[in-house]
């Protein structure tokens, strides 16, 4: 099967899942709710006000996390890199934990203080990591990785500290936020907030697929082939981090998608980023939409945090795929 065909199959699958997902959930919604001809008018609202935005958000989040993860894995030439490796998620979590702990209730332009604070945390972390690596001229990817991991750890312990000094309710809210989830998405407004950064970030990464290919073969070799390595890495870092920051501010740090979706796609479509990038984008979105549909049905009427499902479903799936293809291919 050619790589183009795999992409088309993935696209068709994605469209089918996207069409079906809004009708799945605690309440079954009939198709007629689409054009408002439904015996129960509540279902029309459920479909248009809750399910549609939520499915769209799940897709965008999954696509952004997977594509950013792919870019970071290529850039650091490290299969364990994730969109959160450089501390964006911890920064956002710390922001939200602070807002919850301080009981910030203010709204600004319709966004909750928690979301705003989380996005500020993400931006601050990006600026910090960027600044740290700029301070030493030229950024070695190893330095950047270590700076990100160190920041992540410091932020995580600050979050623990905040949880420790908070009362039970706040502590639980912090914990729940850190697990990530899509249950806070209640309007298309939330979706529109992340669209610009996700679309721009994805386009930048798609634009740089030749460069990503060359950087995986070694930075010096890439430079000798004509790649502006430093500039490319800087642009990739900013594009991927901003997009992940926006997603995390709204959905919390949903784990696993950013780490595993790119690897699953590598096993399916190979290491060439010209195909791997669109595949990761589609598969990441598809995967998170499915996981979220499960999250709201498995224990209905209760909801599971989607982060639990992503790892529970994705882990074994990846291992099966790995065992099935290990004899023919290696991932890294």
């Amino acid at each position, binding site marked *: 099967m050619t790589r183009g065909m795999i992409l088309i199959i993935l696209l068709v699958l994605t469209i089918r899942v996207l069409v079906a997902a809004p009708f799945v959930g605690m309440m079954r919604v009939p198709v007629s709710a689409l054009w408002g001809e439904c015996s129960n008018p509540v279902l029309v609202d459920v479909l248009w006000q809750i399910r549609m935005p939520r499915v769209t958000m799940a897709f965008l989040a999954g696509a952004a996390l997977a594509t950013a993860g792919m870019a970071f894995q290529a850039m650091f030439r490290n299969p364990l890199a994730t969109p959160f490796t450089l501390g964006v998620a911890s920064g956002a979590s710390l922001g939200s934990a602070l807002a919850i702990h301080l009981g910030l209730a203010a709204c600004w332009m319709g966004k909750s203080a928690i979301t705003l604070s989380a996005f500020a945390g993400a931006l601050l972390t990006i600026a910090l990591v960027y600044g740290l690596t700029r301070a030493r001229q030229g950024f070695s990817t190893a330095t950047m990785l270590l700076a990100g991991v160190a920041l992540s750890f410091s932020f995580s312990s600050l979050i623990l500290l905040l949880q420790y000094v908070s009362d039970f309710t706040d502590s639980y809210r912090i914990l729940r936020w850190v697990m990530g989830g899509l249950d806070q998405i209640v309007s298309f407004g939330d979706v529109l907030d992340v669209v610009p950064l996700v679309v721009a970030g994805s386009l930048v990464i*798609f*634009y*740089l*697929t*030749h460069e990503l*290919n*060359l950087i*995986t*073969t*070694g930075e*010096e*070799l890439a*430079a*000798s*082939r*004509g*790649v*502006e390595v430093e500039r490319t890495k800087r642009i990739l870092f900013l594009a991927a981090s901003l997009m992940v920051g926006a997603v995390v501010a709204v959905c919390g740090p949903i784990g696993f998608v950013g780490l595993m979706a790119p690897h699953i796609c*590598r096993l399916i479509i190979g*290491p*060439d980023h010209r195909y791997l990038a669109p595949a990761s984008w589609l598969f990441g979105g598809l995967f998170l939409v499915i996981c979220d549909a499960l999250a709201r049905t498995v224990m209905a009427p209760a909801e599971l945090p989607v982060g639990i499902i992503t790892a529970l479903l994705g882990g074994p799936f990846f291992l099966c795929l790995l065992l099935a293809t290990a004899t023919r291919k*290696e*991932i*890294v």
Partner: protein
Amino acid sequence: MNADSQNAIDVCGLSVWLGGRKILDGVSFGVERGEAVTIVGPNGAGKTTLLKCLAGILTAGSGKILLDGRPLGDCPRKRLARRISYVPQADSQPVPFTVEQFVLMGRYPYLSPFSPVGKEDRQAARGAMEQTDTTRFAGRRLDTLSGGERQKVYIAAALAQGGEILLLDEPTTFLDYHHQEDICRLLRRTARRSDLTTIAVTHDVNRAALESHRIVALGGGRVVFIGAPHEIMRPDVLQRIYGCPFELVDHPHVGMPMVVPLGAPEDSA
């Protein structure tokens, strides 16, 4: 045009500091078009650093490198890559691509974003693989190849890149005799056919003397010798460069003096 305009590359007073240490110290020399120049010298003399400067990978430092009389730094990186290709030291860094994909990636300086690889690019890659005798493992992954095969693929990718100047970092050092001869023959042939200018770095003085028109020796970041192969192949000259005694014996066919291992001193018994 200045007097040196027949030179492909001119290095003028190049000094480079890395990590607070002076690696290159006022290096100057020129390389003519079509010439094969080898850079030798002890470990840490700055050979690889010099090569990376010539490839435009390292841009720090003072002094100038002129490409056709114009500063290298003024040339946009993609345009530079169409003129100069670089073959790095063979290492076993895992590269997940197949040989064909890897050679095609040498065409990067001719591609624009989103553009598919064109017919011309495929032709260039195929030609480079035929020249280097690597067509038969086109579909294999790079990290399943032996060191000698991988070295040929790296050269193929550099040839697909299409520059007229080829820079090589230790092209034969980690290979067995058979593959050493193979690579040298390959380089000699392609250099002649495509009128390439080659600049190589090596530890193998014998190889350097046999394969190059001129030899540049570095020591402590300075040029300590520059001249024809027969001029460097003298015990006193080599001792000055490497700081140890040398024994030389004439090559039976070529007549060039060759370095032989010293062996155990007779009076040690």
